Structure formats: structure tokens, C-alpha cells
């Protein structure tokens, strides 16, 4: 690649505060010692770089950094909001979405707990709904006990997936300690409340630890029974079939990678839970506002209720009924 063959440069993102000396190798610029940065310290595109010279991964990184800088951060998981708040957002948009929102509200799903759109939303939503259901259980001691023993029973599967115990133990402990605190007071003598549950899920370290634990559990479940998932392991971008190892590493264990059918089924199976997902996708050919629910049934107990999530293309939130809470 020679300098002369290059087309004219596009407008620059930022031209001040850049180093005068431009390294020869364009692709090194991102890694150079003192690149110009955003306030947060993320490097931006240096002056003599053409955006077309960037590697896809660098473009991705730049895009993420730009997004992070420009969008005020939403909490990892939010306070419960009335369905009418969601409705207002679609007021000037699609009529089919509005009809579907009204359908859900009429069906009793009158509130939603939103999660940040960071690719971890499915795992975070399930984890939150899972712990919250234990918290509101009519017999918390019993519910907590059986949840913990189910989690305990997945240990051989995690070891079987050849994850380092010292790596997953911390993540797992974060989840089990939180669940335990529903019935057993912590060091400060406190048990879990709806507020401290929300706090734990808004605090990045504990929230992300739990997300990672669920990702590892999902991956371990897929690895433990490859035949059950073979044929369904696809690259979400181009639908190419993937090897199990690649799928698990890149689309289950990696942070920020969205969950799809396979991951949802595997996690529901590993935790022995039922997960019900409402598809708010604007697909409503009869214009009656009907919403399709997809259920993943893996609980042993036939009376077990489902954790209910709301799906909008590319994103999951927790769906709720205010009547089912205190």
C-alpha cells in the first residue's frame, strides 16, 4: 500500500492534541505510546489515518468507544417501570408495536425492568428474575435451598468443560452468596431486600460476575451434550454453521455476545428453570396485536412458574406483573 494510491482523506474526527510524529505503520497508530484520547482515555482515530485502513476489530473498538462516549450510560438494570412508559416511546412509531404492547398490558404484563443493551442483557435479565423470584417465594428457605443445590449440582459440568476452578469459583460464589443472603443474614446482619437486590445488579463487579457465571454454565451445558445442539450452532452474522468449540468460545463465553435460542435453551436446562419470552417484534400480520410467547420448559416441578422476559429485536428485558409482587 503506497501513500500515492490513497484516495483523498475524509473529514477528521478531531485534529487537536494529536502527536506530530506519525508512525510509519498505520496499524500501529492505535497502539502507539501516547495516542489522542477521549476523556475516558480511549484512543480516537489519529489524524493521518484513513478509516478504510482500520482492521474490523479496530473499527469495532472505535465504534464502541464512540458509543460509550456519546450515549449517557443507562444502569445495568433499571427500576421497575410501568408498561405505559414503554408505550410512550413507540407513540410516534410503529402501530403494530403499540398494539402488541397493549396486548401484553391486557394480559397482565404491566411492567418492565429494563437492562442495558450491552450484549449481556439476556443473562442479566434471567439472573435478576431468577433471584427475584426466590426473594418473593412463599417459602424462601425451601426455594433458596433447592436453587443452591441445583447450582451446586452443575459443578461437575463446569469442571468437565475444563474451565479453571479458580476462574469460575469467584463468579459462582458471587451468585450463590447473593441467593444465600435471602435467608441468611450477611456479615452486616442484613438479608436481601428488593433494593439491595437491585443494588447488587447495578454494581458492575457483582452484576458482571453473575453474568459470566451464567455464560460459563450455558457453555458447559452445550459442551456436556453436543448432540443436542449440533446443527443449531450458527454464526449470528452470516448463519454459517460453526464448530462447537468456536461457538462456545465466541458466542457464549465471550463478554457482550447476545444470546439466541441455543443459549437460552442450554441455560434453562442447566438451571432447570422455565423461561418464557414475549416477542415484541412488530410482526402482526392480522393486525390484532397478538404477541407470540416462546417457552423453554426445563423445570422438574410441573407447578414451577416461568421467568418472563420481553424480547425486542436484539434486546431482552425482564417482563413483570405488578400484581405478583408485594
Amino acid at each position, binding site marked *: 500500500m503506497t501513500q500515492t494510491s490513497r484516495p483523498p482523506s475524509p473529514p477528521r474526527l478531531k485534529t487537536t492534541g494529536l502527536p506530530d510524529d506519525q508512525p510509519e*505503520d498505520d496499524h*500501529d497508530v492505535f497502539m502507539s505510546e501516547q495516542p489522542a484520547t477521549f476523556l475516558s482515555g480511549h484512543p480516537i482515530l489519529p489524524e493521518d489515518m484513513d478509516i478504510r485502513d482500520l*482492521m474490523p*476489530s479496530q473499527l469495532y473498538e472505535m465504534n464502541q468507544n464512540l458509543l460509550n462516549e456519546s450515549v449517557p450510560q443507562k444502569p445495568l438494570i433499571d427500576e421497575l417501570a410501568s408498561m405505559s412508559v414503554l408505550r410512550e416511546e413507540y407513540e410516534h412509531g410503529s402501530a403494530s408495536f403499540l398494539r402488541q404492547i397493549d396486548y401484553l398490558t391486557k394480559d397482565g404484563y404491566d411492567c418492565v425492568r429494563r437492562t442495558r443493551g450491552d450484549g449481556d442483557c439476556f443473562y442479566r435479565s434471567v439472573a435478576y428474575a431468577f433471584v427475584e423470584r426466590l426473594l418473593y417465594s412463599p417459602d424462601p428457605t425451601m426455594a433458596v435451598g433447592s436453587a443452591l443445590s441445583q447450582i451446586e449440582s452443575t459443578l461437575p459440568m463446569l469442571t468437565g468443560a475444563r474451565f479453571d476452578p479458580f476462574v469460575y469459583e469467584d463468579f459462582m460464589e458471587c451468585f450463590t452468596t447473593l441467593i444465600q443472603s435471602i435467608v441468611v443474614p450477611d456479615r452486616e446482619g442484613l438479608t436481601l431486600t428488593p433494593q439491595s437486590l437491585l443494588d447488587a445488579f447495578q454494581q458492575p463487579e457483582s452484576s458482571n*460476575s453473575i453474568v459470566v457465571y451464567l455464560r460459563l454454565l450455558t457453555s458447559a451445558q452445550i459442551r456436556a451434550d453436543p448432540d443436542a445442539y449440533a446443527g443449531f450452532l450458527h454464526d449470528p452474522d452470516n448463519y454459517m454453521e460453526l464448530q462447537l468449540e468456536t461457538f462456545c468460545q465466541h458466542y457464549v463465553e465471550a*463478554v457482550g455476545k447476545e444470546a439466541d435460542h441455543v443459549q437460552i435453551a442450554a441455560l434453562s436446562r442447566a438451571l432447570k428453570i422455565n423461561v418464557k419470552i414475549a416477542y415484541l417484534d412488530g410482526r402482526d400480520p392480522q393486525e390484532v396485536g397478538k404477541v407470540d410467547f416462546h417457552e423453554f420448559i426445563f423445570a422438574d416441578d410441573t407447578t414451577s412458574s416461568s421467568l418472563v422476559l420481553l424480547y425486542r429485536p436484539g434486546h431482552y428485558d425482564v417482563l413483570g406483573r405488578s400484581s405478583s409482587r408485594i
Partner: protein
Amino acid sequence: MDARLRRVNKEITDCKNDKSSNIKIDLIDESPFHLKGSFPGPQDTPYEGGHFEVDIVIPESYPFQPVKMKFITKVYHPNVSSASGAICLDILKDAWSPVLTLKSTLISLQSLLCSPEPNDPQDAEVAKHFTTSKRSFEETARYWTQIYAGGPGGIAKSGKSPEAVRDDVAIAGLEKAHVDQFEAIGFERGKVIDVLRRLNYRGANVANISEDRVVEELLK
């Protein structure tokens, strides 16, 4: 103790206790968040016999964000910048998972040396060299292993100053005859090496580049 420190301490201990992997992690100063990793070059590759060092920075939100790694030792490889040591590897970017450790990431770097990905290069010139002539690329990579990574037949331990015996033509992966040819017309040797390297004047590609084209570049 905060979670990041606890995790890093466990990782360092785990690596120390594992004698089978040949991966080493050492402190650079007092900070447990700035480390130096090292491993031997993989067998049956041009990196065999070399000792490769990697600069490791543990970011604030580790292990939820990827560890930052770059080669300290100069490496001639399509996915490693020959100038800065920056590495193009998916797990160091958007395929990072908190299940990965310093040790497993260093092992991935070691396997990256076994299997270059010229279609996703970090160093475009090295990648072109690789795709033009694998044999010539490997010769250069082996030479770099000798002079920078203490590889076999190397000069690092010969007692002489490396600068005195270093062959700039071999470092650039070029043929001495080609460099001599343009130097003889009156161009400065360093400039000839630079231009021929940039033009990828190697192997079958030599036939595609006219002398006029080279001279035109040399006159710039």
C-alpha cells in the same frame, strides 16, 4: 482484597505451579497489574529456539475487559507489528472472555506464532511478504528470532555488539543482490532497503515491479 487483585494473584500462583506449560509470568515492578510474560518459540516454526517476552497490562475492569498484551521481543509475523509489537488476535479484543487467563492467553500467542493469519494482518508489509514467498518470509522470521530472541545460530551471545553484525538486508527480508543493484546506481543503501521492503520486492513479485518503478520511488 478487590476482585481484580485476588484474581491476578491466583493466576500468577497457578502459572508458577504449572511446570508443564513453559509459560512464565514475572513482575516488572511492585505493581501486580503490569507484568511480563514469556514463552519459548514453538517447535517446527521459524520462532523455534527463541525466547519471547510480552508486556502485560491488567486493565481496571479485568477480568471483564481483555488484558492488554504486546510483544517486547521483536517478532517477524503477519499478526504482530514489526515496529511496536502490537498484536492482532481476536481474544485480545472482541472475543475476550473472563474465563481466559494470562496463561491461556499467552498460550494463544504461542499458537499464533504457529499459525499466522495473513488475511487479518497487524503488519501489512509482513503479511505481503508471507503471501508472496512463504520460504523467504520464514528465512526472515528465523533471522529475527536469531538476532532479537536469542535463537539458534544467533549472535546475541557471541559477545560482539549486535549492531556490528546485524544485517539490515536480512532484517528487511530482501536479497542482497537486489539491494546492491540499486545502490550501484547511486542511491543510499538505507533508502534502497526501505523502498524495496515497502514495494515487497521479493520472490515472484520482483517480476511485477519494473526498475523504473523502483527508481521512481527512490527519487521521491
